[in-house]
């Protein structure tokens, strides 16, 4: 709907991944006793950055494509749009034939 959801997800994970990794780098080793000595902030932060990067990339590409589609949509003639819309409706609408009687064809 004009906004590819992958973009905000990507940006959120880039931001959170950044915060958590920086905390992982700056924090002292003694807070990691609970996590068995593993610098979980740094490692998980980097994983989140990677995930965020991929999502943001896909999201940006998706948003661009949506923008192109909207421009193409606007430049079509009214008749062409009505024709397309009717074809789509026929795909989704249940069969409207005036068949009498039950035919268990399914």
């Amino acid at each position, binding site marked *: 709907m004009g906004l590819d959801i992958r973009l905000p997800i990507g940006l959120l994970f880039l931001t959170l991944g950044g915060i958590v990794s920086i905390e992982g780098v700056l924090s002292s080793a003694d807070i990691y006793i609970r*996590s068995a000595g593993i610098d979980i902030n740094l490692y998980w932060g980097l994983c989140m950055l990677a995930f965020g990067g991929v999502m943001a990339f896909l999201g940006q590409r998706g948003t661009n494509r949506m923008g192109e589609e909207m421009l193409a949509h606007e430049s079509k003639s009214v008749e062409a749009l009505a024709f397309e819309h009717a074809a789509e409706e026929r795909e989704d609408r249940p069969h409207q034939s005036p068949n009498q009687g039950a035919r268990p064809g399914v």
Partner: protein
Amino acid sequence: MSLTAIDWLIVLVYFVFVLGIGYALKKHMRTTTDFFMAGRSMPAWVAGLAFISANLGAQEVMGMAASGAKYGIATSHFYWIGAIPAMVFVGLFMMPFYYGSRAHSVPEYLRLRFDEKTRAFNAMTFAAMTVFSSGISMFAMARLIQDMHLLESLGIGYAASFHWSIFISGTIVLAYIFLGGLTSAIYNEVLQFFLIVAGFLPLVLLGLHSVGGWHGLKAKLPAVYMSSWHGMGTTDGNLLHVEWFGLVMGLGFVLSFGYWCTDFLVVQRAMSADSMVSARRVPLIAAVPKMLFPALVILPGLIAAALTPGAIPREAATAGWQAPETALVQPVAGERITRQNALIRPLLDERGQPKRDADGRFIYDYNMVIPNMLAFYFPTGILGLGLTALLASFMSGMAGNVTAFNTVWTYDIYRSYIRKGETDEHYLWMGRMATVFGIVFSAAAAYLVGAFNNIMDALQMVFSFVNAPLFATFLLGMFWKRATGHGAFFGLLLGTFGAAVHHGLTLPSGSLVGIKGGWLASLLHLSPHVYYSDMAQQFWGAIWAWTTCFLTTVLISLITAPRFEEDLKGLVYSLTPRPREGHLSVLSRPATLGIVVLVLAVALNLIFA
């Protein structure tokens, strides 16, 4: 749980994004279709993740971990039996009717298929229940924030924490739904899904590491904890005290199908899909993470039980497992476990002393497993992430209920009975207003639940009465063209009534007559039928209610006039052409995905049997 500025920053960033998404979508909310149905433009994967995320409230996350600690892997039945088959069924067999009928809601499908009074019954009961559910989510979140003393570092006391929590959660959810409608709710649910994984996956990994991996976990727990089908032949062979028939038919069929196939909260997300094929795929796509969630939510419970064997029920002891000398086991590496930071702690009474049962043993508070584990394993930084994941799961539950409410209110109650024939702009305005009063009523419900302890139990009881018969009505409606409106209405009525009667005539073992049941028996001077456990009572109650509804609907339908078949085209299986899938390759057909999902679910059942 002590949080630092970094943790609060993470929570704040999340809130900013959630509101930002709502704001970015504001300009796209031009029609009621945009607002209530996300423009029917959602890609299948987006709607699929929203489907699962709307269902996954924090109560499920915390509740499943609690069940895992108390019952072991048998808790997975709630997923692999209690969800997957129903999700496959609704995707393959029911979405063609929900989506194809162009109904805006589940009650509207009932109006098209049956009649106005059936719709009214379903719309009113659903609207009330969904607002109360949202209120329960708000209450649970506020209570959790209080009990974790989260806001105390900001100078907010115990009592005030409750009010602030309700206010902030209510305002944020209200804002993003008011601005962006269902699309905003769906987008935020997808966001919340990824956050939940990001917050809980490291917890599971660290926890498993600390018990010595899967083998270490197995060595520390009784056999019955690690097997889901062990002892399911009889009621006393397993910890749930349910035998396989009650489990499969009560949970697996009636309750599970009753929820996944008829609850508008989840069906709404599938109805927002961009095409029929997408709509059918939505529940199937959702089934995949649903199958894998036990690893994320049940496993922490097992880990907590392994490190706190004092909390393992006595009856779980089996040959080959001896309860360790001490009630606490030390993790393989990491901080020492003490009474203060134990993963499962005893419930305390008003004087702060641990409560004890008849045998003098502690009564443990399993519900706090997840928050206790977050506080134990996570250092500041990732702690903020874990907390945000928990808050996100509460809020996605609330938002799901509120969008379902504003849609059912506007289309099925307001537009049908109060003001017909108004403009689209008017109904869009009404939808926004409904969001406002939906949140206000939820907050009121949250305070009510907080004031009277038994209300939550009473509400859950009422929900189960209403849900149990529903699937019978839909099953007959979609697959039997002879079912009539009179049949459906009285079937629902009697089925709900039957559930209440069953509750009144039965009692779980060890409970007193009252909210747990038996009230009708005592009124009639009969002795109630005793079930081994609450769950057994609930599952069998569901079976009775469903059967009552089914039989009543069939009998009354046969003695009332049928509908003309032309009117039922697209609403009943035998009068609807099969969805056109010839142009799709075999691999991309929904049926193929459905089969794959079922095979995986069976495999998981066998692996962990």
